[in-house]
């Protein structure tokens, strides 16, 4: 897609209030969102949603949250792990890598997942990490 530069295939973005995620977890438990028990649950939630958007995951896969895990501490580096049907789908649509960035501002967390062609350098974002497929 030319607007992102020749190396970038697609960008998925997701933004959410950290309080909203924490309230939902307090009411329904971390398992409802398939999130690990950690201090910053909004981070893996936002990264996972941004990644599903970047992959253009169809509805039948968009709710398979358990198929995407984020490994790493609060400051990174982070690694995304795909399993199950999402892994099979990602393998069919990914022709390179996924990079992602996360920003916190005013109680809101925003994640951008960037799909890049193989062999290209992803755009520079703060606290960026490459994601092995």
């Amino acid at each position, binding site marked *: 897609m030319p607007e992102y530069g020749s190396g970038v295939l697609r960008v998925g973005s997701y933004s*959410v209030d950290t309080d*909203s995620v924490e309230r939902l977890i307090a*009411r*329904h438990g971390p398992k409802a969102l398939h999130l690990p028990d950690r201090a910053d649950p909004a981070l893996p939630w936002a990264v996972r949603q941004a990644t599903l958007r970047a992959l*253009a995951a*169809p509805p*039948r896969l*968009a709710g398979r949250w358990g198929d995407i895990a984020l490994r790493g501490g609060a400051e990174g580096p982070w690694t995304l792990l795909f399993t199950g049907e999402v892994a099979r789908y990602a393998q069919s649509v990914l022709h390179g890598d996924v990079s992602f960035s996360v920003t916190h501002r005013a109680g809101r967390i925003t994640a951008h997942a960037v799909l890049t062609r193989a062999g290209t350098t992803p755009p520079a974002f703060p606290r960026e990490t490459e994601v092995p497929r």
Partner: protein
Amino acid sequence: MFPYDVGELVRSIVIDTLGIPAALYRTDLVFSADLGLESLDLLDIFFRIECSAPVVLTVEKCGRYLQGDVPDEEFCDARGVISARGLSRLRTVMPQLDTGQWAGKLTLDRMLSELSIGNLVSMVENLLAEGQAAAHA
């Protein structure tokens, strides 16, 4: 048949979750445009319904219900824009969707924003019937 009225269940949960006056409740209200919901609000409503339902409801099942039997590669393009076939499928479960207006424009991200309360009621009824049929199989 179900042991309770799904429409009433959804009504009470939506009113309670959103804190809206009961008099304002209508099944043709669209979650995003009319009620200003974010995606997590919709999840909250769904989880509350899930807790009250006699069969297992999951978000994944909702996704399968919306997509129907349309294959992944035919539902949307690589940018997440829903195809004509995908729109046609969605029209069966979201009858208020104007396929002419949304042709080539409706994205996966935007899809749930167009969901109405009535669509949610139908979806829950359908998933409950499916779950009960599976339990008796």
